[in-house]
């Protein structure tokens, strides 16, 4: 009985052993390459050192090493302090893997200025340096809604309360980008709403999903004193196909009223000093008014409202300290981008 069992088992094991052999070669990258001596095969080179980004020029960076390494490339604006960073793990920067179109990784944006370029391979203690000069500013990819450089966007409506120190006007003393920006602020004691700007748009060319459609907006506060308590921006997006401003007796556009398909996102609180750049995917907007299919569809967007709001100091005595503070939620450079936010662009 035992032999009857053992023999078939041995036969099976012999067959399996044939398929259970050691394999030649190795898995993954070579350790000798990864942890061996580091060499630079081709040093850092730039396709151009005086890019004019305004005519869609780009800078392509290239370098080749003898092994894959963790690298980080940083471009630093020597005047603005702006920076743009790329990083990766590879043996070479080539074939258009690292292309810069003049964007930055965070505020501030680059100016017409000299820039320092540093390619760091931290594990090897190696840094390669170069310089370039920006001769034309970046054309950001996206749907530019308002930059306030040449006035208000066409067809825009502005409404504000009759409060104190109300701004709601164009200004050029401290723009985020370009030459102008739009001031939104003042002092209103009886109501949360101070005012808003309504902008008609046509996004019918946009085909991406709401999760890949980003609102990008610069917001300035804190330059006229301590920011007011609970001041914020209420951004509404309408997908209503009703006329933008048919009833001129209304305060602002009609398409944001009840019964229209409207989505909302609050930038709240606005409690910083200086410019901040806000990016948010359209998918994160909540339903404000049900009036359509309740599906956020970028191609159906017809209007945008940016409303300035703050905790009132008089109506419910909720924020009495705001009696001594001016609300400031100035805005600049409203642009929608596809697939990534503005800082995610190359």
């Amino acid at each position, binding site marked *: 009985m035992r032999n009857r*069992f053992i023999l078939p*088992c041995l036969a099976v094991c012999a067959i399996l052993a044939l398929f*259970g052999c050691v394999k030649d*070669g190795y898995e*993954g990258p070579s350790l000798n390459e990864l*942890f061996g001596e580091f060499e630079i095969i081709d040093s850092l080179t730039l396709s151009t050192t005086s890019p004019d980004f305004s005519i869609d020029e780009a800078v392509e960076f290239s370098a080749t090493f003898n092994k894959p390494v963790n690298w980080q490339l940083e471009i630093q604006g020597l005047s603005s302090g702006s920076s743009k960073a790329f990083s990766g793990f590879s043996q070479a920067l080539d074939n258009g893997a690292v292309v810069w179109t003049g964007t930055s990784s965070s505020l501030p944006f680059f100016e017409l200025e000299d820039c320092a370029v540093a390619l760091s391979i931290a594990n090897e203690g190696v840094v390669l340096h170069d310089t370039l000069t920006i001769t034309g500013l970046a054309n950001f990819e996206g749907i530019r809604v308002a930059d306030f450089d040449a006035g208000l966007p066409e067809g825009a409506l502005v409404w504000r309360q009759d409060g104190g120190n109300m701004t709601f006007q164009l200004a050029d003393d401290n723009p985020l980008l370009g030459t102008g920006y739009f001031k939104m602020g003042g002092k209103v004691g009886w109501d949360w709403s101070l005012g808003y700007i309504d902008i008609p748009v046509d996004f019918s060319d946009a085909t991406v999903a709401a*999760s890949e459609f980003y609102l990008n907006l610069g917001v300035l506060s804190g330059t006229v004193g301590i920011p007011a308590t609970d001041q914020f921006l209420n951004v509404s997006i309408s997908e209503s196909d009703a006329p933008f401003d048919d009833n001129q007796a209304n305060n602002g556009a009609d398409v944001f009223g009840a019964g229209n398909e409207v989505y909302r996102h609050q930038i709240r609180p606005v409690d910083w000093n200086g410019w901040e750049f806000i990016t948010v995917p359209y998918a994160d907007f909540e339903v404000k008014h049900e009036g359509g299919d309740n599906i956020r569809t970028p191609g159906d967007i017809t209007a945008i409202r940016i409303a300035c709001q703050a905790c009132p100091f008089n109506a419910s005595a909720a924020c009495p300290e705001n009696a001594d503070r001016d609300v400031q939620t100035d805005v600049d450079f409203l642009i929608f981008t596809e697939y990534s936010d503005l800082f995610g662009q190359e």
Partner: protein
Amino acid sequence: MMIRPKGLLLVSFCLWMSLCTAQERPTVWFDGLSRSLFARDAMGAGSPADSVSERSTSAGYNLLDLNVHVNPTSDMEVMAQLRVRNELGGFFGTGTTVDVRQLTLRGTIDDKIRYQVGDMFLRQTRFTLFNSASDAEALSAGFQPYRDVIDYENFYGDNRWRLQGLQTDFSLQFARFIRTLAVDAFITRPRGSVLTSSGTYLSDRLLGGASAVADITKQWQLGLHHVNLFEVPNSGTMDVAVRNPVHCAVVHHQQSGERWTHETTLHAGTSNRTWVFAAEDQNDLTSSGAFWELDSQHESRDSLWNWNVGYRYVEPEFRSAAAQTRRLDWSSAMQPSTFATYTNDQLARRLSVFDLLVDPLLYNQALAPQLMQFNPFLSNVSPYGDGTPNRMGVFGSLEWGGMKKAVNAALNLTALSEVIGQGTENRRRFGRAECRIHWAAPNLLNIEKGVDLTFHSKAELTRRDGNELEELDLRSIQSSMELKAGLSDELTMHVSASNWTASGEEFLSIRDAYGNLFNFEAVQVDRSDWIFASGLSYKWNKHTYASIQYQWWGANDREEAIPDFQYQRLFFILAIDL
């Protein structure tokens, strides 16, 4: 108080439906568990200077898990587990939650086919669907109350994964050729469609499987098992979906002699993992692997001796998500729940073994299609259980229970190597020796109810030859000893000491989102963790007990940049099995 209305509505609906469909008066019965836990942590005298962190903290909770069983008919049961939990210090409803923790409907159709819908606990073979124990659990002498909490909170019972779905099984008896055939099939959803922070929706992830086990004769048994973890692309907005079918055949033979019982089991199977891309110009990524294992077990008829020997071969490309998913995922951001930062520089404190032994929130319950990262300090030989890919070699064990069962001694030995080298043609070789001795001395030291002494030790060795860049030598030893003295039938005093030490170097595999190995991270390990504990336990029965313990624990790292730390804990638990 936070009440989850959806859960309560669901329970109410199920109960109502069950009652409506009942032809007879339903039976309702209850069981469950109640637990009170309190822990007070304090910095030890040997901790580095830290005037920023609090010197001590305390936390605890009371909870009641009430299992409501309703039998609307004799062959149907609805079970809902309702949890009421109150954090210590929460008064007037603050910090109190009411939750539905489990919901299951089960029954039989015509006394032949069993089914269950809802929460279920599934397991197949060690290569297809299996919840392997974590690295930190092997040695936990004196930590059984913590072990109970972690297993209970994470549903780690009997090496099963907790899943939600539909399962059915039945068995058939035959007059010829085979004696019986048992069939089991299930479909579950380990993950629903999820909105990520980037605004994309992850697809539904489903796990389906089936088993057919036939008793051919009294000696021979044949089993066929299949599981498939897959994603439904249409349910999300991702442009990639995974499929991971695994097949396994098991041949089992058992034979009884006059003095010995012999059992031999052969596992063999294949796996395939494919990343399917939505873009037509992107080729799917497929990897296929196989495994086999032969295990021969022998037990003396008097149960005095028990030994086994076997051989296992698992190809590097073998991927089985439901068997290789780890309880501890070191690639996730796991943080200590107490004293997360330390020293005046507020350094992030690394997890010590004590954290792993006591904190149930560190553990994972989600099946993953990629290999999770592991920590070579704890285990380097089989970090993904017996289904660890790229391993081949022998294993065996010897167990002896003598002196009228007063002594139980076990020795497990494993010698494995890689099937293919990683980063070099030289392959790693692994060795593991594990020894466990339990001695129940009835009259030692004149203690009326006797003394229980347990010693458990595990040593691991990883080596690789080669040049100075390829060479590896990682050694670890983990030891634990516990002394329990019975002061009465119910009251026990216990003292335990545990130590985990490892030193050497290793390369961690860095894989991309699709599991491709593209980089290595060189790590130096030279540290030891330790725990001393003493306390009293009063046990009414196995699951109803009270225990109070004082624990001293800490870690020492030879690297000067990582300061040592030392803490103490007073711990109390009262667990009542309802």
